[in-house]
């Protein structure tokens, strides 16, 4: 077995750019999926009955599908449905957002439901409107409980961005496997890819643990 690690250094610029895309995809997906998840959770909890059913169906469907299938589906079906020629990056972002929005919606719903009913009733007895009670009593407490879950969703999302490599989004996994195919330095490139993911993912996982400890709710 002869190893030549210089191949990693020679392609450092490509790998760096690809790592940037991976990080950017994670941030962009979360930026879309947090407000959308809040909206879906609100529709599911307070919407008109048919809207509520639709929101529930959406959440249950996407939580019960493998992400890689959603990515392929978005790649082939979205252009036909929308008539738009979406770039792989936009398609990947759409697929990731659809997936993470469903998870976030469930997180927000569980967060709101975790606050006892008595608190809304108490706030309303004090003369607050339902919206006021929600905004000033329920949401501030729910946020504390939601944050640790969002942190672990973030860590999963960071890893799941690798799945959009199957539709040729030039993120870390795709670029590393491209270089592997061009140079035949299989072991070196795949190990470098794993190492880069590890270097970025490990601190994120530790940070998520810290947030979980920091905001642990004990009753």
């Amino acid at each position, binding site marked *: *077995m002869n190893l030549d690690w210089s191949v990693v250094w020679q392609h450092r610029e490509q790998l760096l750019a690809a790592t940037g895309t991976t990080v950017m995809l994670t941030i962009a997906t979360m930026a879309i999926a947090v407000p959308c998840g809040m909206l879906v959770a609100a529709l599911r909890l307070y919407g008109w009955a048919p809207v509520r059913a639709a929101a529930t169906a959406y959440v*249950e*469907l996407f*939580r*019960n*599908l*493998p*992400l*890689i*299938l959603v990515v*392929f*589906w978005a790649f*082939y*079906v979205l252009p*036909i449905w929308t008539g738009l020629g979406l770039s792989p990056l936009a398609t990947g972002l759409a697929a990731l957002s659809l997936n993470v929005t469903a998870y976030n919606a469930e997180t927000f719903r569980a967060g709101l439901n975790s606050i006892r009913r008595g608190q809304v009733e108490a706030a309303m007895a004090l003369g607050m409107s339902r919206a006021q009670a929600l905004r000033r009593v329920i949401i501030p407490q729910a946020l504390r409980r939601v944050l640790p879950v969002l942190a672990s969703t973030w*860590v999963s999302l960071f*890893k*799941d*961005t*690798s*799945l959009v*490599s*199957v539709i040729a989004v030039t993120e870390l*996994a795709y670029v590393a*496997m491209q270089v*592997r195919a061009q140079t035949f330095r*299989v*072991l070196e490139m*795949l*190990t470098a*890819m*794993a190492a880069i*993911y*590890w270097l*970025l*993912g*490990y601190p*994120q*996982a*530790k940070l998520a643990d810290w947030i979980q400890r920091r905001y642990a709710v004990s009753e």
Partner: protein
Amino acid sequence: MDFSVITDHWQFLASGLLVTLALSVASGASSIAAGFVVALARMHGPRWLKPVVVLYIDSMRAIPVLVVLVWTFFALPIVAGITMAPFFAALIGLTVHLAAYAAEIFRAGIESVRAGQTRAGLALGMSRAEILRRIVLPQAVVRMLPAFGSFLSVTIKDTAIASVIAVPELMRQSETVQGQTFQPIEVYTFAMLMYFLLLFPVTRGVDLVYRRVAHLGRS
């Protein structure tokens, strides 16, 4: 839409579904078994072993499954000087990845049983192994049920990623049929339906069982 593409290729797709089931059951079982050993090593192993186990668990939380699978299939044979069938490589890769998650579920479940019970067992002259088997695990296993429900669902979803290393499971077979017939909407909608029908009962079923037995885990 013309769903005759599904009926024309039903045997091919059904064989994919069988492989998905086989891989899910095999990797689910092996990672739960391995996860139990890892959790015991983390909690009761020799002192030098603990940091190693923690590093392994946190690393698996930081590296995408795709990367683990691709590395196992393409790079491990170079290191070990062996060749592996895709199914076998997927089984190893998924087990290495998922065992870390299973270990954390076991640890959380076992640690949720109050330490006083272990001390009471010791005071009664039971050995640590006896206490684990007869006092701690019977309660912990019930409390772990919801977590293992989502673990099972994650396992089934992760088998779809094995399509990347050419395991002929449902995702891969769907891609092949799509590539031959150019009917992505029909093929991927069918795949979505199959995965949903597989995953939804698993998550719901575990919830139902848990509601029946939850009282057994209280102490």
